[in-house]
């Protein structure tokens, strides 16, 4: 398994510092997702001796996606540990280290390789507390880059957050804004139970506005990224930009679309979802994962269960086509939800 650096922009050659220096409240700085994640990591390593980062190429290489660049130099090899290619081994070691009193952040290079560690994640990390009758907790954070990249073909393009969101005992979060990229890690580290943070591979080079002094964010709530009245578009992670772009286009058609960012796939913020559908009465789910049994199915089921009498149209799901992601660009595009697909679905709901 090998992967070239795939970020859209070249690996940052600048110094790792990403802390905004301005201390004025209300001032926002434009930073990349990469810088936001890095800032969170640095803050975690600096703030608690028990925290360590381990994974493949996180140290000398600076991170496959250059997220941890400079951290080895700053914190040393006992805090930033390069591991051999042993996903099961080092994720399980993360479990053991958490049991033993450390606060490990394990990075699995991408979700595509996480399957090798699925046993440690499910049968140990998620389950030890319950199996031991509450005696043991596993305060482990696993960062997992995910989602399609640029023509990386079938084995390097998965969106598998939904598989992990299926498992009781885990928290599964999907940052899709720089604020969440910056702030979810701290909250995850404070959680006495395992948290999986899925970072969008395609987002590392993108920028966003981060308010100065932005800190930890909650892991429990979905967020309305764009208020609207006619239809609710729900996305998470890599599908959120698609939903937002679709909302913009729908506005030019006279349809006011509300965009909801799930932020957390487990537990789902049912209340926010139902409240939105209760106002708009129409729902379109946008999801890069495959349709069958994906997280979109779970959200659709809950809305049908709890808000049926609010729906003025059938629930629409715009998901990945049931095909392994193909290599050619036009085919990859066709295999994933497009803005046009989402707009069409939303227009169907408003009849």
């Amino acid at each position, binding site marked *: 398994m090998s992967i070239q650096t795939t970020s859209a922009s070249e690996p940052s050659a600048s110094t790792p510092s990403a802390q905004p220096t301005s201390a004025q409240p209300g001032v926002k700085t434009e930073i990349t997702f990469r810088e936001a994640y890095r800032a969170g990591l640095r803050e975690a390593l600096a703030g608690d001796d028990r925290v360590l980062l381990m994974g493949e190429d996180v140290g000398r290489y600076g991170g496959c996606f250059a997220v941890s660049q400079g951290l080895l130099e700053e914190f040393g090899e006992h805090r930033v540990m390069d591991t051999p290619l042993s996903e*099961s081994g080092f994720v399980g070691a993360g479990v053991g*280290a*958490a*049991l033993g009193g450390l606060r490990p952040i394990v990075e699995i290079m991408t979700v595509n390789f996480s399957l090798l560690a699925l046993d440690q994640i499910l*049968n140990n990390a998620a389950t030890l507390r319950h199996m*031991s*009758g509450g005696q043991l907790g596993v305060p482990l954070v696993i960062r997992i880059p995910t989602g399609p990249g640029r023509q990386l073909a079938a084995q390097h393009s998965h969106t598998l957050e939904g598989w992990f969101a299926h498992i009781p005992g885990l928290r599964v979060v999907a940052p899709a804004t720089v604020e969440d990229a910056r702030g979810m890690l701290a909250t995850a580290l404070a959680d006495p139970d395992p948290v999986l943070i899925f970072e969008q591979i395609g987002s590392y080079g993108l920028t966003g506005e981060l308010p100065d002094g932005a800190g930890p964010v909650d892991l429990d709530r979905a967020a309305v990224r764009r208020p609207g009245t006619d239809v609710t578009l729900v996305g998470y992670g890599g599908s959120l930009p698609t939903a937002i772009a679709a909302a913009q286009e729908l506005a030019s058609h006279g349809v006011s679309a509300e965009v909801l960012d799930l932020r957390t796939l487990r537990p789902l913020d049912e209340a926010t979802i139902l409240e939105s559908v209760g106002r708009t009465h129409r729902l379109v789910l946008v999801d890069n994962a495959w349709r069958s049994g994906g997280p979109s199915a779970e959200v659709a089921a809950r809305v049908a269960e709890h808000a049926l009498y609010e729906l003025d149209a059938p629930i629409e799901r715009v998901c990945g086509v049931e095909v392994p992601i193909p290599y050619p660009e036009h085919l990859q595009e066709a295999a994933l939800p497009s803005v046009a697909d989402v707009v069409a679905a939303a227009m169907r709901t408003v009849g």
Partner: protein
Amino acid sequence: MSGVADDKEMLGLFSGMLRIRRFEERCVELYSAAAIRGFMHLCVGEEAVAVGVIGALGESDAVVSTYREHGHALARGMSMQALFAEMFGRTTGCSRGRGGSMHLFDSSRRFYGGNAIVAGGLPIAVGLGLADRRLARPSVTACLFGDGAAAEGEFHESLNLAALWRLPVVFCCENNQYAMGTALARSHANTDLAARAASYGMRAWSVDGMDAPAVRDAARMAVDTARGGGGPCFLELRTYRFRAHSMYDADRYRDRAEIARWRERDPVELMAERMRCSGLLDDDGRSALEAEVAQEIDTAVAEAEAGPVEPVSELTRFVTAGAR
């Protein structure tokens, strides 16, 4: 038989093994009476490994084990009552009745299970060693597993990681010659497990797993090495299980003659004979000990049976820290 052990220790080894043996025999009865359900894997014949290895550990050391862990748990000091209650599914069990035979845990004794995935515990042991080293604790983690685990990827990953990072882990392979129904030679192209472990860059020994003092000595050496910064160690403990893999196993894959041969090296009787010969324990002494153990078992079973069952309303507790 080798090894120097004082009388008290010898007596301790013997009584420890006897307790385990009689406990396991009672489990057979209880399982047959359907008081214990699910999967149950007994360590009859492997008692010397349990008392030898676990007995070499200190209080602050850690143990990671498998689903064949009754002996390890008892040797670690967990009470018979806690184990019986766990297998009866009562809240007074060591895992609140939630785990059963395969998931015995005791965080106060750093006993981390109780793992039902073969080789699933090895990476955890690596992590525990990592924490101990990082937090500058002089603790050692003993990781017990079987010969079957030596085929899993996690075995190789874990030994490599432990050696690479020089972690204080003692990998104890309880080689009872069979991975469930598959004999050693049919699983491993190279059956010299100690040699294979050594190839990862750690000290490795093969030990007669039916000789309790020998096991104790080897374990002590390994633990001291690891604790002293000598990196991880590997012990291959050659032993045999006299009963089938589990209560569901018809044990048709083993030759009766082979079992009989190994029974001649019953670790409990070997020890008893040795102690009789050196005058440490005569027949009366043995009888008294047997009676004591029987009493302990009876009391423990009765107490365990009286334990409460968890109400269904509590079902979703212990999934996450805040779960209700």
